């Protein structure tokens, strides 16, 4: 089989992070039984995302190899749960609520405006790593609808016109 032996970049770039993921993997009772290893997959992914901030291909491959799984085993789980991300997060995490209350008050137009101005789609990170954009469901602040959060800050009663202003604040 034509074996892939390309250099593992992210892991080499962040030796401390890699070490801490390996330490976690070493602490697990992994063995020859693929089925029992599979039971640890989600906790490994949680740990890895908490260390790296996201789940790059190399990290997925490392986890797959240690658990004796294939990349598709790992990737299938990642793509199923919206919690997991394979994109490095931007410096500003913009979440636009598309829950019912926000939606009826026009959150879709706000979201479209963010997509247009940053030039990225839902779930993506801008090339300059400045922004990542996600649509989310209810944040529990329906009286303030429509709601946008940027990192830990909440913007209430948003309008599409204020998008430019928010992006400017992030500079």
């Amino acid at each position, binding site marked *: *089989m034509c074996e892939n*032996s390309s250099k593992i970049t992210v892991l080499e770039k962040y030796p401390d992070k890699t070490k801490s993921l390996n330490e976690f993997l070493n602490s697990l009772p992994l063995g020859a039984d693929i089925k029992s290893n599979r039971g640890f997959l989600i906790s490994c992914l949680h740990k890895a995302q908490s260390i790296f901030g996201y789940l790059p291909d190399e990290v997925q491959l490392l986890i797959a190899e240690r658990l004796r799984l*294939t*990349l*598709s085993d790992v990737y299938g789980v990642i793509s*199923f749960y919206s919690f997991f991300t394979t994109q490095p997060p931007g410096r500003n995490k913009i979440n636009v609520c598309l829950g019912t209350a926000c939606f009826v008050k026009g959150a879709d137009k706000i979201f479209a405006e963010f997509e247009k101005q940053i030039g990225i789609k839902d779930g993506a990170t801008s090339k300059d790593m400045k922004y990542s954009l996600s649509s989310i469901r209810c944040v529990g602040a329906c009286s303030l609808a429509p709601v946008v959060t940027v990192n830990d800050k909440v913007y209430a009663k948003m309008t599409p016109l204020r998008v430019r202003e928010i992006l400017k604040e992030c500079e």
Partner: protein
Amino acid sequence: MNDIIKIFIDGREIEACQGEKILDAALRNNINIPNLCYDKKLSCTGSCRMCIVSIEDRPVNVPACSTVVENGMKIIAFNDKLEAERKVILDLILSMHNDDCINCVKDGSCDLQDLAFRYDLGRGKRTFHPMWGDAAEYSDSSSQVLNYDATKCIQCQKCIKACQEIQGKGILTLENRGIEAVVSTGYNQWSDSKCDGCGECAQVCPVGALTMKFVYTDGKRFRDKDISKITGTTCPYCGVGCQLDVHTNSENQIIKVTGSESLPNLGSTCVKGRFGLQYSGHKERLKSPMIRRGNSLVECSWNEALAFTAEKLKEIKSIHGGADMIAGMSSARCTNEDNYLFQKFMRTVIGTNNVDHCARICHGSTVASMLTSLGSGAMTNAIADFEKADVIFVTGSNTTETHPVIATAIKRAVLNNNARLIVADPRKIDLVRYAAVWMKQKNGTDIALANGLIHVILKESLQKDDFIKNRTEGFEELKKSVEKYTPEYVEKITGVPADKIIEAARIYGTAQRASIAWTMGITQHACGTDNVTALTNLAVITGNIGREGTGLNPLRGQNNVQGACDMGAQWDSYPGYFQVENETAKNRFESLWKTKLSSKNGIPLTEIMDAVLEGRLKSLYIMGENPAVSEPDLNHTVEALKSLDLLIVQDIFLNETAQYAHVVFPAASALEKNGTFTNTERRVIPVRKVLNMPGQAKEDWEIIQDLAAGMGYFWNYRSWEDIMKEINLVVPQYSGITPERINKGELIQWPCPDSKHPGTSILHGEKFTRGKALLQAVEHIPPAEETSEEYPFVLSTGRNLFHYHTGTMTRKSIALNSFCSDPYFEMNEDDMRELAINEGEKVKILSRRGEIIISARSSKRVEKENLFLPFHFAEAAANMLTINALDPKSKMAELKVCAVNIKRL
């Protein structure tokens, strides 16, 4: 057998097995409940909901595919309400499916199309709008052999399950959720993934989402309904003997190949069998006989070629003093009938036992060892037995690449049946991922390793004393000889840590049913026979033989290497393993063949080239072999071929050996002839004509018969059946395997003593073929050539999944070349860094015998100071480097170990 119970479907009483699903029982009784995601070979998915049924006294409908039958259960499969619900469900599924039937290759064989027709759901009649448009971005045609059209995918997950549950590979997954779910490999694109192109997924896809690329028609598309004929035949590649369905159109062109749902492969194939049969219609095929005029070969008529050859053979036979100056190389690639006639030609027409074939450099050592210790050299159990074992010990076999479909059985045993796998291999082969223990022994230390396992088993009293007492001899000597092979001592020789040896011994020793499988990593050594003997000792003292799921299982390398041995294409035995030097055997064959026979052993394949150079051989008749690439130490081989008075080459291509021929006969390929092969598990399987022969090519047995006639021997075989009838008389193991039974579709394992006998799946059941098993003490012998300062690397040769042997067939396939087209060798990545060799850089590898220039590929699979070199590539032939050191007992060449050095250019 499970208990039979009664159930009622729509008032009809039917029998069902306890524990089975309603749908299985219904379909078996021709109650055609619609379904899309169900496949009897896969675990239940229950996602399409088309098979809903209602059960009396249950409040809700249930899917028949995932509901277990109960005695007396009253089921309604069809009524207006259920049919109306199914119609809604189907309408929903159709909204996810791009029903571009007019342009779909599956038009006419699509399960969804059939159901849409059955439920009258044409485009104008549906409630739900099409929702498949966004899926287009997930379509992926990057695979070398497959296309995935996400817009047609109905998320039934059959492909994902086939890849995981049948192939054991787990390449595919469902990406995303709900309406966005699509099939994915998890990589950026399909071709980046570890998918090796077996195509099991495309075979199970019920719609046109996953399809095979048109590798046989240069990309020209054909629909399934353009197929006019399906011929069942045997794959021409490895010894698994997969049964293939070759689909052809009205112009007799291959459209596609699928695996037949029969033994031994149960529907599976590997990438070579499914996508690699282009060689048959290739433009370079030999179409006419050729004869040497000066420096070139020119086309000539059959009459001229045969007359020239017959005259020349007669001349050599008389002038140079005897038939023994002529030798024949028969072929494990040809049918039983071809091989039988070839050796009969050499023995009766020429009058010599100088006939052999490549088993000598394959499992010659296995046969030599197991004939002595057990009385039969063949695989003791069936391929299906791997899935009945609770422990499988694979040693010296990269099964995933050499016997891909057997590897899937091993993987299924581990993944589905919780069998434990022990792997002993110097390389980190694919099976290591599935292994409970991996022993990474140094090349050429297999005897020490097996003796170490036996030592631990005896020390911990895990052996079967009753079995040893009643069915073996020689145990005391064996026991004494392994005393010194303590785990610590074995660690020193093999490099395998003592605790791993102990762990592996305990796993094997405590198994209820343990199977051992091996290939060339064990046999291709100067101590190959003793390697096999050591494994035999291990199986016998633990009683792991003669029962289901156990056994000694040498996986034979070529489609018909077992058959060629059975047919007596061997220097020392007649058909059926009668020794030529045995007077009674000679008399038997003299009376069967009504002629005088030579009582002298012939020259084994591995000594033929020496014999030529020493002047003991003047002529070689080579059928379907390519020694100018496959023999060890090629410089020596080519020198020998050049010095012959008469070299006859009978082949499908003008191969490297034919460059030195005086006369060339064009032969039919396996896809163009009828007859039988015998696969690795001793199963006699049919070869059926799919395509027409090119030009004037003839079937091998016909050519041999014509040549015999030219020499004054008039045989009268009209078909393969005539030859098989003679084989039934001559070879006791084949007595009951008649052409009638083969034509009826019976796939019988020898020995089969009469036409009523069902065949024998397991050898040595009640007693060993030789009576009692002979345990023989064997000692570690270092390889013939060890590393030195001048040659510090150990070179091992072997196969790559995508190519086969000297590449004459597989390298004609664009599909297979798209996976791997050029020669390379694998080198440890640290060694590469130390020597500053870049990935893909061309370097020179030198041994004491020759040198080649070849690209380096860095690998995690090989250890430091080890190299692995696939031998398929004539332009960088591994055998320029290998050593012709021979095993004294079997004449096997040591192809697995030689010392080499690497120089940057």
